[in-house]
């Protein structure tokens, strides 16, 4: 077991760690919508839709706003 954090990281410098950190956050805060991410969201929306009549209507109100995003996810192309 290492004695302090510098030994723990060994030859890795703060630059290496910061690169990893920045990559992690740029993925986390990314506004892109790949298909995989879209599919992960579907169960939640489905559950909400199935809950009742009012929730279904509520969700459909947002459909026009969601369509470009869905298109983008399926085709993989960003619209103008």
């Amino acid at each position, binding site marked *: 077991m290492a004695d*302090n*954090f510098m030994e723990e990281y060994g030859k890795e410098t703060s630059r290496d760690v*910061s690169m990893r950190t920045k990559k*992690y956050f*740029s993925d986390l*805060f990314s506004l892109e919508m790949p298909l995989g991410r879209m599919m*992960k969201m579907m169960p*939640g929306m489905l559950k*909400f839709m199935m809950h*009742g009549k009012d929730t279904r209507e509520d969700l459909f109100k947002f459909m026009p706003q969601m369509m470009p995003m869905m298109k983008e996810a399926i085709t993989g192309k960003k619209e103008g």
Partner: protein
Amino acid sequence: MLEQVKDWDDDFYETFKPIAMGFVNEAEKCLQCGKCTGQCPAAAVTPSYNPRKIIRDLVYGNVKRVLSSVELWQCFFCSGCYSVCPMDINFPFFVFMFRLAAMNEGYGWEDVKQLEGYAEKSYLKDGITVSTFERNPFVMDNIGDISKIRVEAGLPPERTVSPRGIAEINMISDLSGMTAFMKQIGGVELLDCTTCTDEQAKRCKTKPMPSKVGKIKTHHRYYNYGEPGGKKNAEAR
């Protein structure tokens, strides 16, 4: 121990700021005046915890020390430091961001795991973060039974969230990825650097946080900002 300045990532803060969506702003304005630490209730009991030092390390790019520290996990988000800061630095936001970063590095999972019960079991099921069954003895002694007070105020004895509200909470949790995150925490098997074998240690170095549910190695954290104090640490080891 002697630190090498060339080991720091000089432009970490400047490059991180645009990525962090405004969560780590204004740190470059820090005067190192110590007003944050002076008013900090956590620092008053754990002297090694020091917001001023953490801000300094972030701006100067000593990322290794921040992420591997125990101190990063001692903030409890009272935001007192933000309210007194002469430069309007929102330090609790920094803590929030760098705890995520530390988890990405494999630190601090043991602390987050404790919250799993509240989030997954209480919040997603009832829509309430703090379980109504949990009775704080201090509150019971000093203020009384909360359900009685609620009834007197004309409210139902227990907090309730409508089924629609719970459905909405679940959807938001799914959409934002919180459900997946909580599952991930649930799947964490805590290993400890003090007990793991060389083979495990080698694997954990090369593998950052797994994207799927599975074992997460939690690294041993260090008191990077001073001695924690207390009887246990009174003698040199």
